[in-house]
Each structure stands twice: as C-alpha cells, then as structure tokens.
C-alpha cells in the first residue's frame, strides 16, 4: 500500500514537473487561436496566410480552428464566455452589435490600426465597424452581388446576353422556365430562396431602393421599408414564385445547388460562389452586374471582419494584432481573392484594371461602386423578417402591404430595444 502511494506520488510529481519545464520553455513563444467557420476555400486561404506569417514571425504560433457555420455563433459565444476560445475571431459585420454588446470582442488598438490609415485606405463600408469612436474589426475582403447566368440555357431559349433591367429579368425568367407534361417545374428561370441566402439583401438594398424607398432611416434607428416602395419591391420579388412561377422555394434544395446542376437560368449571389460553380461539371456560366431600373443600379455589399476577442490580453493580444495587421495587408487581400474569390477590402488593391475587367470578378468589383452595406442591429432576426414577409405573401396570400406592416413592427421593436427608445 505504502509502496503504491509512493509510486503515485512520483508519477504525479513527474507530470507536474514536466508541465513546469514545458511551460518555461515556451515562455517566449506565443500561441494564439484563430477561429472561423468551415468553408473549403476560406480554410485553405487562412492556412496559406498562417504559413506565410509564421515564417516571418517564428515566435508566434497560430492555431487555426474551424467548424460548421451552423454552430459558429454559439460556439464562439460560449467559448469566450468561458474564458476559452479564440484570440482572433471572424465575424459577419452584421453581428458587430451582438458581439460588442455581449462583450465578446474588444476595440482594435489605435497604435497598430490608426483611424486615418483605415479611413483613407479601406472601402467606405468598413466604417460599419466603427462604433463609439473605436474600430472593432477589419476585413480582408468584401462582397457584393452579381447575376450568374447559364449560357447554354440562355442560348437554348434564344436569348443573347444577360438581362439589363428588372423588367428584362422577369421576361428572361419566364422564357427560361421549363415544366414537364404534368406541370411540374423541371428548370427554374430565376432562382430565389425565399429570403434566405442573399435574397433578403437583394430585397432590402436593391429592390426597395429601385422602387424609390429606403430600407432604414438615415440615423439607422427606424425601419422604413414598409411603404409603397417596399410593397412594390416585395411584390416584384414574390411574383417570381407566385405569379410568374419561375422559381419554387426548395427546388433541388437551394438555388445554388440547382444552378450548379444546370437547372437554373438566372441566379443572384456573391463572388464567393464562383469557386463552387467553377467546379460544377458541365456548367457553362457567365456573370454580369445586377440589372438596373430606370437607369440606375444598386448593389449590396458586406464583409466578414476579423476582430480581437475579449479573451486576448498581453502578449497574446499583441500577437493577435500583429497577425490581424498581416491579414489586412495588400498581400493577404490578393491571396484571399485568388483563393476564396472575395474582393479586396481596399480600393487600391481591388480597383486595378486587371481586377475590374476580370470576366468573373469584374462585375462584382464594378458593383462595389454603387453598393450599400446594411447596418444591422442583429442580422438573424432581421433576415427572418424578410423570410417571413415572403412566406406570408407566397404561402398565405397576405398582401405585400400587410405582410410588411407585420414584420416591420416586430423589427422596429428590435431596434427600439437596441437603441433604448
């Protein structure tokens, strides 16, 4: 018995001893954690950037963690709350207020990221990350929307070139829709996912503006798309499914899957979708700018930002800031564009002629010129508003006016809660 106890003591001693030695060896080296969601090309790009960064900074090690998008928000919140998790974290710009309010992230140190530098070098939309005089994150890349179209299907329908106006788009969609003998949809003219994906952005920032409205008041505290313009915009959007019957929510799972399978004529999405469609066998597609209306064009821009989590302190914070500096460098932006297909966050890198005339990225980059980034209070419930309004009109035959009145009332409550009115 005594003998055994001695053994155990010795064993424990050796464990703690080795832990102690190990920790003193690594005192100079810093290990930080970087978190993002799992998406093939993004993971690949960050791995490349980490490798570059580590060879330039051998004393910093970066642990790259990623997991499915569905769990992303929850895991980040719970991990940081438990004093665990990332030092540097990716977040969708629409979540800024959620993350800031819950104390998940901290402001960027001004000595490393000077405001003058940010404001003169980055696209204007990055100002969405500035709250209360501080920047809370910076993007490597930005996004905008464009119209993907299937060349073979357009040719088959006798159409040449992409639709240039909203009215054109309806006519194209009708001509590109196919049904079988018993009337079942077998090819979508224009695919929308009933509010999810990029559709709600397209509605808010493109359609509402085209029909003469504005999604939110200038001070960002009032939801204003429940007017005649909003109703027209919602009618335009829902008519594709309800009246023209060129789309069916859930057809082949999602619009992007149906488009990749060559069963969709027109489809709106971001540049990050290019890599998926490039890999789709037998798909012959092109990209154009979003159709205009009455001679103007609108677009929606967005981005994922990198932010310092509230957990990062001391040496880790310095290391994380250093890596963030690299992530937002010109070099990183070009790597990101080439790997992921998202557009550089600085005009000086994005708006070079080579990129502007690029057959695939060009339309997105040109779209950045006339794009707006929505300032979300909370992205998820606000997306749900559009999804619900869409469903009320399509599934329950509610008028667009009534549907908007209902969802905007709820969205406004969210705003009032947030702004403390």
């Amino acid at each position, binding site marked *: 018995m005594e003998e055994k106890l001695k053994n155990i003591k010795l064993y424990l001693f050796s464990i703690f001893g080795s832990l102690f030695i190990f920790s003193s060896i690594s005192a100079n080296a810093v290990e930080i954690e970087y978190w993002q969601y799992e998406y093939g090309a993004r993971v690949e790009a960050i791995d490349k950037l980490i490798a570059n960064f580590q060879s330039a900074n051998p004393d910093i090690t970066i642990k790259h963690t990623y997991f499915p998008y*569905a769990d992303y*928000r*929850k895991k980040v*919140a*719970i991990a*940081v*709350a438990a004093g665990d998790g990332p030092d540097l974290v990716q977040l969708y710009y629409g979540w800024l207020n*959620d993350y800031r*309010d*819950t*104390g*998940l992230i901290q402001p960027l140190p001004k000595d490393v990221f000077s405001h003058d530098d940010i404001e003169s070098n980055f696209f204007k939309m990055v100002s969405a990350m500035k709250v209360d005089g501080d920047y809370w994150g910076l993007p490597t890349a930005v996004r905008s929307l464009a119209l993907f179209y299937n060349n073979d299907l357009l040719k088959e329908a006798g159409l040449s070139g992409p639709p240039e106006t909203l009215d054109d788009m309806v006519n194209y969609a009708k001509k590109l829709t196919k049904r*079988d003998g*018993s009337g*079942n*949809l*077998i090819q979508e003219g224009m695919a929308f996912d*009933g509010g*999810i994906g990029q559709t709600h952005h397209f509605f808010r920032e493109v359609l509402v503006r085209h029909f003469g409205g504005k999604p939110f008041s200038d001070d960002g505290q009032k939801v204003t798309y429940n007017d005649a313009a909003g109703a027209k915009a919602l009618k335009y959007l829902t008519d594709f499914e309800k009246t023209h019957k060129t789309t*069916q*929510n*859930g*057809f*082949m*799972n999602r619009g992007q899957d149906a488009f990749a399978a060559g*069963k969709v004529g027109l489809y709106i999405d971001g540049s990050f979708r290019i890599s998926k469609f490039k890999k789709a066998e037998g798909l012959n597609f092109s990209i154009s700018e979003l159709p205009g209306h009455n001679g103007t064009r609108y677009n929606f821009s967005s981005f994922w930002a990198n932010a310092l989590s*509230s957990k990062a302190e001391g040496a880790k914070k310095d290391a994380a800031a250093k890596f963030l500096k690299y992530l937002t460098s010109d070099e990183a932006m070009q790597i990101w564009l080439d790997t992921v297909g998202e557009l550089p966050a600085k005009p000086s890198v994005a708006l070079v002629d080579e990129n502007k005339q690029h057959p695939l990225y060009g339309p997105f980059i040109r779209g950045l010129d006339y794009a707006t980034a929505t300032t979300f209070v*909370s992205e*998820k*419930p606000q997306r*749900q508003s559009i*999804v*619900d309004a869409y*469903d*009320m009109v399509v*599934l*329950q035959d509610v008028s667009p006016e009534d549907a908007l009145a209902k969802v905007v009332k709820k969205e406004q409550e969210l705003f009032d809660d947030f702004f403390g009115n």
Partner: protein
Amino acid sequence: MFRSFWENLTIKQKLAITAWLFLAIPIIFYITIRFYPTYEAFYVSFMKWNLLGAKKYIGFKNYIRIWGDEDFWIVLWNTIKYAIIGVPISLLISFTVAYYLNEIRFGHQTIRALYFIPFLTTAVAMAWVWRWFYQPMPIGYFNIMLSWIGIPQQPFLRSVEQALYSVMAPAVWAGLGFQIVIFIAGLRAIPKSHFEAAEIDGAGRLQILREIILPALKPTTIFLIIISTIGFLRIFDQVYTMSEDSAGGPLNATKPLVLMIYDFAFDEFKLGRASALTVILFLLLLFVSILQLWLARNRYAKK
C-alpha cells in the same frame, strides 16, 4: 485518526456508511448537474443577462414579455399539438403493430427488428433523409411517388398547414420501435389462462381485445403515454434539422418551445428570457407528469 474512528463502529454502522457512500455518487451527480442548473434557470429567469456581462435583476419582466409575445403562443400551441396529435397516433400504430406481430411466428424477429431500427438511428441523420424525401419533384421521393399515382405535388415542409405534420411523421416513426417492444412485452405478460377461459365462454376476438387485452395493458399504456408525451413536448432535433435555416418555419409553423429557448439563448444571447421559457416548459412537463401520475394512481385505487 480515521482508522480508529472506523474500527470503533459496529458492523451495522459500517454497512450503512458504505451504502451511503455509494448512494452519494448519484446524489452528488444530480445536485451538481441537475438540481443546481435547474435552480440557476429559475434564478436567471428573473435577470437580464447576455452570457458575458453582469446579471441584472428585472423582476417578472421576462415573463411579462413572453406573455405579450404573439410568437410564444404560436410556439406553445405547436408544442402541445406535437404531443396531443403525436402521442395518440404513435400509440395507435404501435399497439396495432404489436397486436398483430404478437400473433405471427414467421418473420416475427425480423419485422420487430425492422420497426426497432429507426429508434436506434440518430434523429438528425434521419431527419435529414426525411427532409430530402419531402423535396419537390426532381428530388423528393414522396412527390415522385405521388406523381406516379397522379396526385398533384404537395409542398410538405413548405406549407404552413402541412409542415408540422411532416416534421411529426419521422418523430412518430422513430418512436414506434420502442413502443412496440414494450407493448409486446405487455401482451406476453397476460396469462394464457385468461384467453383460454374467454374462448371457452365463447368470446369473440373483439370481445377479448376489449375485455381482456386492453384492461391488462393499462399500466403499459400509461407508462408509454407519459414517456412519449414528454418526448413530444421536448421535440427539437427534427425541427432544427428539417426547417429552413433551422428557424422552425415557415412562419413559425413548426417551431416548438425548446427551439425558441435555444434561439433566445444562443442566437440572441438573451439568457434571462430563455431561462424564463425553460421554467415555463418545466412547469408544463410537471403538470403533465402529475396529471398522468394521478391517472395512474386511480388504477391502483381500483385494485
């Protein structure tokens, strides 16, 4: 010191202490991971808390907001619908299957296994398969079958009216195996002599069913009702997996209480409101359990 204390005890005392030591494990386990969190949930339900900051006492405000929330009443009604429709349907099917399965010998084991497999399958994996079954034409299995027999396509998950039942179907199916096995056990436990006596008295099949089998199965049935009611009131995996964006849509048509709690807690970080909803669910489950225990006690009183 410990040794002398131990040696001064009588054997009876030693036995009691040993027993308590073993019993202490589940008690400590329950206190730390069941009772303490339950207490916390009650406590947090009176707070405003976003997971990271300090908790702020706000009285009954969380409950008042829930009471005034239109969605809460839809969600509560959905939850009740899952139970009051799902439980009778699943018990009826499982009893019928068990009744006939009990009468056959050939293939009995195989068929019973076939019914039991869904019970062993991960709910999420199964829900995904069903989600694809419900797709529109070029993919969806159900719609393809409907078109073979000339019935128009159904929207299933994309319909405010059909979605709840479409989500309920795999949940019912998954629970059948368990219920059938319990029912068969119950049927086998009825003494053969009862049936023989009934036959001698010239009772028909229906009479045997009504006068012997059903009364004899009452304890089994009550047990299954309790278990499956609680199961349906806590439905989550199927809805989370099968509804678009895991939102419990379309238009909240499939959203149960548990999903609402989950959304408040981990999407909007409103832990106070989520805890208040948890307390409501707790009370609902408590009410159902007490009601059913009371029904069960009636049975003993009769005996």
